[in-house]
């Protein structure tokens, strides 16, 4: 085996290893390494009481009601399942119905989730407020428009 052939073989081997490793990682990240669970992923059976998890989804429309100055009740849904959430604290100003949100906390019992903090998730659309008004007047605007 001449020296040059050995060297090329080593380079080729390293590239094969790196490529397969990258594919392995890409394939697995696609799967389920989620930073948070969606409501449908949490089926009722295996809820572990007061284990700290994060749930992400949309705030269900007209499910938001204010109990006192700093405690709220709303539902997080992803159009398949929805979870009742109680929260005490200051809501970020981006938080409103129909808006994506990630909440962190634990299940108090079977179907009430007590959130310790709430992150409002901002999608990637930027649109001036003025256009929103025009859209509303012309009736294009519909509640689900994120």
């Amino acid at each position, binding site marked *: 085996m001449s020296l040059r052939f050995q060297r090329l073989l*080593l380079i080729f081997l*390293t590239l094969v*290893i*790196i490529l397969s*490793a990258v594919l*392995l*990682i890409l394939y*697995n990240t696609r799967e389920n390494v989620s930073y948070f669970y969606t409501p449908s992923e949490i089926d009722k059976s295996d809820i572990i009481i007061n284990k700290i998890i994060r749930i992400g989804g949309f705030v269900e429309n007209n499910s938001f009601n204010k109990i006192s100055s700093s405690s709220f009740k709303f539902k997080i849904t992803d159009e398949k399942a929805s979870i009742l959430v109680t929260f005490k604290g200051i809501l970020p100003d981006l938080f409103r119905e129909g808006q994506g949100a990630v909440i962190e906390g634990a299940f108090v019992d079977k179907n009430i989730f007590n959130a310790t903090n709430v992150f409002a998730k901002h999608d990637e659309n930027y649109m001036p407020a003025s256009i929103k008004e025009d859209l509303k007047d012309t009736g294009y605007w519909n509640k689900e428009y994120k």
Partner: protein
Amino acid sequence: MKFLNKIIFFFYREYKLNLSGFQDILTNIIFFFVSILIFIFSIGPDEEVISLIGVGIVWALLLLSSTLSLKKFYQDDFENGNLLIIHLNGFSFGFIAILKTISHFLFVQIPFLLSIPIACIILNISDDKFFYLLTSFSMGSLTLSCLGSISSSMNLMNHRNYLLGSVIVMIFSVPIIIFSIGIINIEQNFNSLINILFGILLIVFAINPWASGLCLKLSLENN
């Protein structure tokens, strides 16, 4: 056949070097246990909190203790010329890097692997978590050895600021820690996380001979 003997006798030399200085390995383990005790005393003895963050403590301290022995990688052999003699004996620099990484894995990481059960008892980590900790560390430790080899070969000629080596290892080990802790805390399908950890191990193991080899050649050239 001759080449195989040379490799075996290379490890014999490493064994003699490490085992004669037995107190090196012991000091690493003692450092590991003493820092666990310090964590326990600083956090307070109640079982609930400790078992919650126990896994994090164990992993972070394993990382710190494995950066302790960076100097033993190439620095001593480089200073007394043995690195050149081993190279002249027929090993290319990349191959020396691989052998050194494996010998570091054997003589430093395996003792840590064996000391994990005791650490888990002290921190009363539950049994299944202990099993996941063992699997994640067995892969993570080889990755840490490869990172250690890369960072210590970079710092051969760096006499002024040697701490840089451990900073390099710590920075590149952040994804390893994220995924290993992920494996331990997420109970259900964690085999995708194990695959990711294995992927990282493969990448670092493939990069190691080239990066370390080049740095060793460079340092010998400009010694």
